[in-house]
């Protein structure tokens, strides 16, 4: 386990896009994260794995600042964001696609798509997003929540591509979707990686994660207990699957 960590960190050069250390988070009285350490380098796709309740989603929500209380350090492109208010955090260049997709029922598809403000130069135009997800084009004036699950997921990913953020946090983008849609989402993630996006993914679907990820962090009870690169993950696949209860 420790040599897995050593090899992965040694393989990376340059400054991390995202560096989390000693992250703790609470929902009211309940202490959910107990010191999470995760780093993600530019252009990587990194996946957080773990059983239900291990703290994967809470880690993403903590990065965005939308948990009631958090401490520790979260550096986004070198900038410390732990003390920032949530609407400032997005402006550090990070964008979030929540587990429930977060499509607004009171906004139509175009409004959903164009809601997040641009935080950086170089985001996609609405037209480019529609080229990436042609299914959305016919539904532009439908209420966001009238779309199918797959279309909602495309909308949820598409709208954060407009912002210009280059660090994307995707919380279970394949949950509850048909296999053909899952492979389309996988294709999109690989395409985004080719374009230089950095992605931190939370997944229950390990086989899906293996089609896109460069590295993995395993969370258990609010802490990172293991990290793996692609090779060591595949080598230890059976033990890991057993540990994750998949």
């Amino acid at each position, binding site marked *: 386990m420790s040599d897995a960590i050593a090899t992965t960190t040694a393989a990376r050069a340059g400054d991390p896009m995202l560096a989390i250390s000693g992250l703790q988070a609470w929902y009211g009285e309940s202490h959910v994260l107990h010191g999470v350490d995760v780093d993600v380098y530019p252009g990587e796709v990194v996946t957080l794995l773990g059983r239900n309740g291990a703290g994967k989603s809470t880690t993403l929500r903590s990065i*965005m*600042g*939308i948990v009631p209380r958090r401490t520790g350090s979260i550096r986004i492109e070198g900038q410390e964001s732990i003390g920032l*208010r*949530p*609407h*400032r*955090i*997005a*402006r550090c260049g990070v*964008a*979030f696609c*929540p587990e429930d997709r*977060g499509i*607004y*029922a*009171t*906004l139509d598809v175009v*409004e959903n798509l*164009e*809601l*997040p*403000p641009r*935080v950086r130069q170089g985001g996609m135009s609405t037209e480019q997003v529609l080229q990436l997800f042609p299914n959305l084009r016919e539904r532009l004036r439908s209420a966001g929540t009238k779309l199918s699950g797959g279309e909602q997921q495309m909308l949820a990913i598409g709208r*954060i591509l407009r*912002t210009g953020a280059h660090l994307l946090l995707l919380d279970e983008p394949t949950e509850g979707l048909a296999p053909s849609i899952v492979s389309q989402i996988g294709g999109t993630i690989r395409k985004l990686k080719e374009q230089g996006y950095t992605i931190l993914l939370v997944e229950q679907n390990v086989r899906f994660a293996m089609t896109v990820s460069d590295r993995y962090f395993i969370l258990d009870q609010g802490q990172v207990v293991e990290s793996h690169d692609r090779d060591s993950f595949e080598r230890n696949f059976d033990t890991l699957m057993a540990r994750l209860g998949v």
Partner: protein
Amino acid sequence: MDFFGIPIQAVLGQLMLGIVNGSFYAVLSLGLAIIFGVLKIVNFAHGAFFMLGAFVAFMSGRYLGIDYWAALFIAPLVVACIGIVFEYLFLRRLYGLDPIYGLLLTFSLVLVLEGGFRVAFGSSGQPYPTPELLRGVFNLGFMVLPYYRAFVIVAALSVCLATWFLIERTRLGASLRAATERPDLTQAFGINVPLLVTLTYGAGVGLAAFAGVLAAPIFHVNPSMGSNLVIIIFAVVVIGGLGSIIGAIVTGLALGIVEGFTRVFYSEFSSTIVFLVMVAVLLLRPAGLFGRTEA
């Protein structure tokens, strides 16, 4: 010519009065509905801000020589600023708590404002002149319609439509709807939700103040002019569906008209009818006429 044995002039007169009252209900319940939607605060002080709008117009006229037309813009701005300060200093501390705290705080503001103006100006009320341009009446043959009342209807409905357009058809409105639906997520996209909330409260009470200025020449400007209205306004918002913009506008106008008709046929009933409608609507459609049932 008559209508179920009642002279048509009397019916139309009450209808007109009903539309005027309904216009006030529409503007006031619109502001209340927006505030409730975004802040989840039941703004009991809404009537007090209406009264404050009328008093700002009255005082700026008496002490600063500001005329009606200027007051129509200045008073809502002044009251919006007061509302923003109130939200910033006090109200925002109560978000996420039991709604009763917001109700108590805003009710206490009613007592302070009404008490203050009662001490300063007495409770009998001050006359506010109708602007010169709008003195006189349209003689429609079957009834007379004072210019000023016609103006009130047009001004109130224009403001309602403009507000509706702003919320339902613009990007700012989309951000506001998003902040209403999912404040956390909307912040995570980089939208300054606390600022939107503060501005919403200012705009909501500014609308109340606008209605207050419109009302000043019709009613005497007096400290309790808002309390008389606020209970009806609550009923309107409940009937229309909590937080529904179009519901507040349509219901406000419709209930004004219903009230007017009731006054013709059975006037003793006219102050009760709104609440009977409320009971009926809550029994049949608990989410209100235009309300979305929450999943």
